[in-house]
Each structure stands twice: as structure tokens, then as C-alpha cells.
């Protein structure tokens, strides 16, 4: 794109490596006649330039709410969101709109994310015409070409495309405004395995070619591991563990992470892994006493876990965990011993 005049303030702040961050992020949803439901309980999160940060957890853990709050759609109930040096919360709608193009979203449902009455080409042209691109049609076709949608297919409407093709169109639309961050909310969960691989490879390639930083939200740990540099595991609205992708899968320190990993279907599972206790279900709200939300299911829970919320603390360089009794590194089950 040519309009360098409106080059974002963020890209000038090269001294700092953080492209998007949030502090004390709280997301609540109003419930008619009741107390609002708190989906995210005051988390801190930082996205470094050029990295892919995975957000992983089970349904209701607040990963999607976090992702949406990071792009102010809707804005968080509390907490601050920083796009580089720019504080997004507190901006007026009008001011915020000017910076929206820096942050894009890609959704799970390939159908719902595209306007059913528009062709793929029109969908990708829309953000370009909005930014007064001189040649929106040419640029849109170029972008579609880049994601593997040819000119003939660009004339089709979403319901005439396959799920994978729809996601490609979404990606093309997402990069059209040259954002610095894309939040991918379960972008491959609705796709078949072989199509999923195509879209994941495409995302990796687009990230490199368009200098993107990604937040990748998924319930699928294998997918998250493959695409992420760092991974944050969420449980009931909190980050319980945050570490490098390889590190967290090899040395899970939180008992919930260990349970998640042991639950992934894996042929030839080492026998010792099957012993991870898996009982009970995710509660809908944390313990009223204010303790660790996982305490009720945790095999290592003690009295302190039920009363005191463990803070997310760095226990080895780059590895943060919120647990009073983290799994010691030696006893940790080696998931890769199978191979």
C-alpha cells in the first residue's frame, strides 16, 4: 500500500519490542438481572514484535474474550491496552477507529466471517477502498492470489467457496490494511485436517511476508505448539502458565497444563502419563474463597491453594507459572520419550 503518510506511530517505537500489551485486563459480560459474568480476571499479556503468541485453554477459559479485548471489540471492562506506545482504552470511538487498521481479527467460522452477499473480491476490496487505496481492485486480486484464491474464484460468494477458501479470503482481508497484529481466533478449528495444514502454513508465510505479530487462540494444543513461539495456558479467566512453546510442552510446570497435555490423544502414550488425575469438570466460577481456580481438580492441592490465589511468577527464565506447588522439572513426564 502506498499511503505511508499515515504510517502508524507504533512502528516508530522501535526501542521497545512490545507491539501490543495489556495490563490488568478484565472482561465482564452483563447478565440481565444478575451480577455480570467475569470471563477474564485481570490478566497481563505482552505480544512481542514478530512473534506468535498462542493462547490455549478449554471452552470458557476466557481466551477468546482476551483476544477480542486486545482489539477493543468490545473493549475490556477494566485494564489498559497498549498498542506500542499508544494507550487504546480511553480513546474515543472516533480516535480508536483511526488505529483499528493496526489490529485485525480472523475468526473461526469461515461462513460467518464473510458477508454472504459479497464476492470474495468485493470483500477484500472493502478495507482497501476504505483507506482510499489508489487501485483497490488490483491490490485485492494480488492479495487473493497471494493466499491462493485465483481470479475466477474471486468472483464467487462465500457459500460457493469451501471452508478453507473462505479462511484464505479472511486472511487476505486481514492483511489488506497492513496491520501489525492479527488476532486469530480458532482459525482452523472448523476445517478438515488436510485443509487445516494448508491454512496454518499460509498463516506462517503471511506472518513472515507481512511482518505480522500473531495472537493465535485455539483449544488444540498440537496446533498451538506448531505455530507459536510462546504459549499462554488459560484456565477460568486467568493465565496459569506462560512459556516458550517448546519449553511448555516439554516441561509443563502447572498441573493443569500437564493434565491438558496428557489428555491429547496420542498413540504409544508412555504409561506413566496416563496417571495424571482427570476428574471433575471445569467449574463455571473460581472457588468463592479466592484460592487457585484449579485447586478442586488438582492432585497437588493443599490448604493454601484453596485460600490464596497463586501469582503468575517467573520460576525459570522466560517461564512463568501461577502455582503454589509447581511440578518439579525432574519429575515432569517427558512427553517426547515416545518418539
Amino acid at each position, binding site marked *: 500500500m502506498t499511503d505511508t503518510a499515515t504510517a502508524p506511530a507504533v512502528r516508530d517505537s522501535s526501542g521497545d519490542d512490545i507491539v501490543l500489551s495489556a495490563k490488568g485486563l478484565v472482561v465482564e459480560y452483563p447478565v440481565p438481572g444478575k451480577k455480570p459474568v467475569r470471563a477474564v480476571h485481570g490478566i497481563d499479556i505482552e505480544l512481542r514484535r514478530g512473534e506468535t503468541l498462542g493462547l490455549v485453554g*478449554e471452552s470458557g477459559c476466557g481466551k477468546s474474550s482476551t483476544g477480542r479485548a486486545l482489539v477493543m471489540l468490545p473493549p475490556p471492562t477494566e485494564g489498559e491496552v497498549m498498542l506500542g506506545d499508544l494507550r487504546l482504552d480511553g480513546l474515543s470511538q472516533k480516535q480508536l477507529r483511526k488505529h483499528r487498521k493496526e489490529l485485525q481479527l480472523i475468526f473461526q467460522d469461515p461462513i460467518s466471517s464473510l458477508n454472504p452477499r459479497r464476492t470474495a473480491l468485493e470483500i477484500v476490496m472493502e478495507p482497501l477502498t476504505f483507506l482510499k487505496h489508489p487501485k483497490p481492485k488490483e491490490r485485492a486480486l494480488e492479495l487473493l492470489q497471494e493466499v*491462493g484464491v485465483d481470479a475466477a474464484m474471486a468472483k464467487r460468494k462465500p457459500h460457493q467457496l469451501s471452508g478453507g477458501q473462505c479462511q484464505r479470503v479472511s486472511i487476505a482481508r486481514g492483511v489488506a490494511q497492513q496491520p501489525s497484529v492479527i488476532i486469530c481466533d480458532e482459525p482452523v478449528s472448523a476445517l478438515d485436517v488436510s485443509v487445516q495444514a494448508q491454512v496454518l*502454513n499460509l498463516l*506462517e508465510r503471511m506472518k513472515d511476508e507481512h511482518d505480522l505479530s500473531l495472537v493465535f487462540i485455539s483449544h488444540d494444543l498440537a496446533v498451538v505448539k*506448531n505455530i507459536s513461539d510462546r504459549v499462554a495456558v488459560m484456565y477460568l479467566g486467568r493465565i496459569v502458565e506462560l512459556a516458550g512453546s517448546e519449553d511448555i510442552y516439554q516441561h509443563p510446570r502447572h498441573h493443569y497444563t500437564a493434565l491438558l497435555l496428557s489428555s*491429547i*490423544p496420542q*498413540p504409544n502414550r508412555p504409561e506413566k502419563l496416563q496417571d495424571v488425575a482427570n476428574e471433575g469438570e471445569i467449574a463455571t466460577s473460581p472457588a468463592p474463597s479466592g484460592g487457585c481456580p484449579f485447586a478442586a481438580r488438582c492432585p497437588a492441592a493443599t490448604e493454601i491453594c484453596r485460600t490464596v490465589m497463586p501469582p503468575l511468577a517467573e520460576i525459570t527464565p522466560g517461564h512463568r507459572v501461577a502455582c503454589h506447588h509447581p511440578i518439579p522439572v525432574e519429575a515432569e513426564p517427558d*512427553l*517426547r520419550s515416545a518418539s
Partner: protein
Amino acid sequence: MTVEPILEVKDLRIQFKTPQGIAEVVNGVNLSIAPGRVHGLVGESGSGKSVTARAVLGILPRNALHKREGSVRFAGEEILGLSEDEMRKRIRGRRIAMVFQDPMTALNPVMRVGKQIVLPMRRHLGINGKEAKARAIDLLGQVGIPDPEEKFKVYPHQLSGGQRQRIMIALALSCDPELLIADEPTTALDVTVQAQILDLFDKLRRERNLAVLLVSHDLSLIAERCDEVSVMYAGRVVETGSAISTFEAPQHPYTKALEEARPSLENPPHTVLRTIPGRPPQLTDLPHGCSFANRCPRMTELCLDVDPPLEPGPAGRPVACHHPVAGPDEPLGVSVTAAKERIS
């Protein structure tokens, strides 16, 4: 296998009438499950795995053309030609039970869960209400529902997704079936709940000598939880045999490609995944030779002309391929079309 199979499907063919023409949805499928075994049926959407499972129970959509081709033998009896009435009275729910992906659509939303379990028991087993209730509560306990007495009285929407699926399983087990068909039973569930439900299947088949037909799109799930597996593609079984061996040493290029397309915890981050170029063929217009040929890196002239039969391959398990993968270390190869796809 020395035990008589409880279910034997031979050369099953099912066609659907669609606006585009006749779709060959299931195209000569063979299956055999012994009591106490779990047989996995794996494939991507449109492979015909769900339709195969449903055909066993005789529950097909209205646009299915019932040609009664092939045979479905259950406990020695041919059930493919049975009337709807007979299926309902003697087989469905009574001797073959089914668990669906979405328990919310399978459970009656305005009926208490206890009653939903009691009703079929009274009808099929002819026991009185009190006895049925006692058995239902016992069953709820067996499938891992806490406070079964309490949960007996609730409505489906008051339960979590995992609990609803447990209710579905209790319902399926209520008449002590010999075969359980589970169609993507855990796809809508969280991974920890999925593990619990699959553990439950394990326990049930051990305790009750239950045969299970487990349908899933997840190859690693099938490999972990099943004894045997059949990999389906475009309405056909392309590879079958022991689950672990199929996973470790796939013989069919499709199985192998599927495995390499799936991100694995064993690979480091940013591993480039294998993609399968193209799309599955239109079921209304199946190609002459092998259905996978146009996407296969090993394709030759022969594949376009002759549809490969399901015959023992290099690993001894049946495979429908002219150029099967010889061993786990042999690379699949990259075809010209696949290479093109990589570049673009």
C-alpha cells in the same frame, strides 16, 4: 481373530440423490467387529464414515437410495433388509445403540433425563417403573455422573456438555446393547472431558464385552483408543487393520499424508505441515481409477485406469493402493502438483 464377529459389513453401497446427480456416498465398504473390540472409522468430512455407521442402524436421510446392496450381518443375522418396524422393535436402541456428536439434539429438551433413560428400558426390557428407575440411577453412576439420584430429575440444559454426553451414553447402554456406535462422540467436548469420555468407553467395553464402532476425524484419537481401524476416503475403505500399526506404518499415501498434515506435539514449533493438494472428488462423478489418484504424489498411469482392490500390503494389512508405502521410514514423495502448490 478367532471370535465370531458381532458385526460384519460386506460390500455396503449407499447412494444419495442430490441436485447434482447420484452421489456414491458409500462405495463397497467392508467392516468386521468382534465383541469387546473397538473399531475406528476415520476420515475427513464427506468420506462416508458417518453414513456407514448410520446405515448399520438403518437411519439414513430421506434422499438415500436404498438399494440394499451388500450385507450387514449382526450377531449372525442379516439386518440390512429388515423393515423399519422390526429394526425399531428388536435392534435399534435394544441391541445396537448409538451416541451422537451433539447430545443436545439427541436428547429431548423438555423431558427429565431420568425419564428418557427409563422409557426405552420399560419398552424394550418390559420391566416396571420402579425397577427401571433403580437401574437408570445405577447406570448414571456407572457413566460417572455425580449424585445420580439428583441428576435423574434434571433437564438436559441444566447439565454441562460432558455430562450430557454421559447421559447419552447411559441412555445408549440402558438396554444392555451388544454394539455401540459412537459418531464423533467427543468432537464437541473439551480435551480433558474427551479423555474422560474415552476412558469411560474403555471401561464399558472391558466390563460388558461391548463392541464399539468409533467414528472420528481424528487419526491420533482413533490410534490411541481403538484396536482396529478403517481409514475411509471418498466412500471407500483405503486401509484397514491394527490401529497402532496403521498409525505407525501407514501404507496408503492418504493415511500417511493425513498423519503428516496433522501438527504433532513431537515436532518443534514452526514445522511446515504436509498439505494434500486439491480436493476430494465429487461423489456424483467419481473418477475411473483410484479416487485419491489426482491428489497423490505416487500416482501413475495405472492409478488412473484401475481402481486398486483392498489387498494385503507391505505391512500385511489390507490396503487399496497400487504403490503403497513400504515402511514408516519411506518418504511419501512430492508430486509435481504438490510441488506447485508449495510454490504458489
